């Protein structure tokens, strides 16, 4: 199978280039396994990876123009040469490794932690199964950045627009029956950029490797805002 992989080492390269590779692939092989074999032959090829099963979120990259996790992207069925590039829109540190500082900054900015103002009980807070169901599709996010780096609004304003991943987490706490910071969370998202730069392009939904739907979460936040205004 033929690959074309984005290479850039700031110590030696003036500009990035695409490097062709060829590899014999076994049936059922995932892209990460392919990259690891290529790295055994050329150890300068750099990328992040860890769990190999789609839960740690390390190996987000752009594969034939679409963001995804290398470890759960089967090679079979990919158009050749398989073009592998770093996640788009972020500064490239080296090869497929991007600087995600802004992505993490936006995540931290939505205060992604449960806030309860009442005194703590000695037992668990009660939550009905129906209330808990509201967190499904939200809490599973692995912060791989595939969504935010596929979002044109995030490309243009990564410093001002929270981006789909952070907004999904903002809604994860708004939707939690235990959380008591609804008003603060909503007011923190006001203004023309933080939330409202989302133009429902839905790239985030299209690429999320966990099948989550940030656009829907953003819509829910907007609806909550409306309710709170009235």
């Amino acid at each position, binding site marked *: 199978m033929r690959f074309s992989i984005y290479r850039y*080492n*700031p*110590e*030696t390269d003036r500009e990035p280039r695409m490097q062709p590779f060829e590899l014999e692939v076994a049936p*059922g092989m995932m892209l990460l396994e392919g990259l690891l074999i290529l*790295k*055994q032959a050329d*150890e*300068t090829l*750099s*990328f*992040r*990876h*860890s*769990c*190999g*099963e*789609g*839960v*740690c*979120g*390390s190996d987000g990259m752009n594969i034939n123009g679409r963001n995804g996790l290398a470890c*759960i992207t089967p090679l079979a069925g990919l158009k050749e040469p398989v073009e592998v590039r770093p996640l788009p829109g972020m500064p490239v*540190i*080296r*090869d497929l*490794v991007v*600087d*995600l500082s802004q992505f*993490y900054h936006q995540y*931290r900015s939505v*205060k*992604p*932690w*449960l806030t*309860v103002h009442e005194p*703590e009980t*000695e*037992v*668990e*807070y*009660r*939550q*009905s*199964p129906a*209330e*808990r169901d509201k*967190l499904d599709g939200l*809490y*599973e996010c*692995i*912060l791989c950045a595939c969504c935010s780096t596929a979002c044109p609004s995030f490309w243009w304003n990564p410093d001002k627009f929270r981006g789909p991943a952070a907004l999904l987490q903002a809604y994860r*706490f708004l939707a*939690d029956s*235990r959380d008591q910071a609804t008003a603060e969370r909503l007011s923190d998202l006001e203004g023309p950029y933080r939330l409202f730069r989302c133009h429902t392009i839905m790239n985030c939904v299209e690429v999320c490797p966990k099948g989550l739907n940030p656009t829907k979460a953003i819509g829910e936040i907007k609806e909550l805002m409306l309710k709170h205004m009235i």
Partner: protein
Amino acid sequence: MEIKSAVPRRRFDTLVIGAGGGGLRAALQLSQAEATVAVVSKVFPTRSHTVAAQGGINAALGNIGPDNWHWHMYDTVKGSDYLGDQDAIEYMCRAASRLVVELEHAGVPFSRLDNGKIYQRAFGGQSQNFGGEQAARTCAAADRTGHAILHSLYQQNIRAKTHFFDEYYAIDLIKDDEGYILGAVVLEIETGEPLVIEAKTTLIATGGVGRLFRNNTNARINTGDGMGMVLRAGIPLEDMEFFQFHPTGIAGKGMLISEAVRGEGGYLLNKDGERFMERYAPKAKDLASRDVVSRAIATEVREGRGCGPEGDYILLKVDHLGDEVINKRLPGIRDMVKTFLHIDPSKQDIPVFPNAHYTMGGIPTNRYGEVVTGVNGAEDVVPGLYAVGECACVSVHGANRLGGNSLLDIVVFGRAAGNRIIEYLGEQRYHRPVSDSAVERALARLARWDQKGDGESVAQLRNDLQRAMEHYCGVFRTEDVLREGLEKVRQIERRLPDARLQDHSKVFNTARIEAFELENLVDAGLATVSAALARHESRGAHSRIDYPARDDVNWLKHSLYFKEGGRLDYKPVRLQPLTVEPFPPKARVY
């Protein structure tokens, strides 16, 4: 000398190495107590391997049926095959409920029962009333409990303003002439530049060493970095011969299929469609403890009752649970099986085989998380050094860990170590001086890989090591095979100085990180095989065909492996609990 003094230094009260659940729980305790904390992690915190824990965390909340911490303690002692230290086990099981409630308050989205309480499921080795009916003690967030806990702990640390050094790799501890640990030399992966982090206290929370074995359920970061660091600092590793093989890894691939699948009612079948666990564990059946189930699967395959064209796996039957249970309680497993096997577990059985999973042994500590050294019962505390989680050996897991006790271990002892460190910081008002020579030792390790030229690659040596460990130190062990295995691993150790990197760049050089990891893997491998060869009995996960029985007269003791000379020593098991009567060793039947 110029270069050395040019290494920048930062100063904190506490340095935490590793950002999994243990490191983050300790960091949270410390940040809330207004200590300055630096958390160094070679990956962004939520990528730590805690994220992959599936089934849940044990606590005798009694939300499903009667339960109490004392029964949990009994199960843990029995599960450990009586090698666990009973003071630490009592401490952990007593603390469990409080710690789980605390996690819930921190935001963990546990699954719920109709009455709004935390959902609990049955797991292996759990009983009511000291060996009676099956208990349901494992608190779960679907089958993503580790993910839910790790993210919540990271979030709480952001709130507490813990200082993170993301993507920094710890090279070595800094130790002064009086034996105090004073921080570590770390490497910023993005720039390739070293940094000295001075700290009054250092907590190691670097996780296990599952990457020692070719087929394993572990993330690629699980390379025993903390274990390598303490060995190089002259501190031993405890009970390294006890390595858990999880019964249900996806056959040939290694991804973990949670014990929760059997907890929810799944069971194992051999090629004759027989539910064979009934023969090995008449009462607990598929929910016997992991060492028992793994040996049963390996035995079925060895004796020709394996499934598939090669007869090399066993089937895990799930389809009878129905779509609702699978979608609600095991959605992660469903997705993983679909992704990697292209089958739907609600329609087809899952091929499984035991895979290397968990390091019971590790850095010797007491129940306060303090690293202790010394043999024959003397427990000298290494001043300034702490360890928690899979890299540590308290020992609450003894010879075999129960499912659901590892997430518990990390939060209980993460918190305990945090509290102990706060006490120590109260006594140690000032940083002790860090001499250049102490820093130089660690920098030498860095310089070694700058050597250019031809030599074996890191990948080659790592592959050879993983194959040797799997072949010579697997589920079943014998004297001859282990002896050969020790020689193989020693050969790899001897080849290591001639290995060379081809990539000598600085910026995000992952090849260099893998070289450091390999050094740690080799040291952990030597510890594991050496201790396994010496232990002439079968206990928990350590199963010797030539010594099939447990031998409490000669072997009811912890092993200690020292890097210098590959020396072994032993210390007694702490059989006296804190407040209750001891559970004396007896035959272990499930």
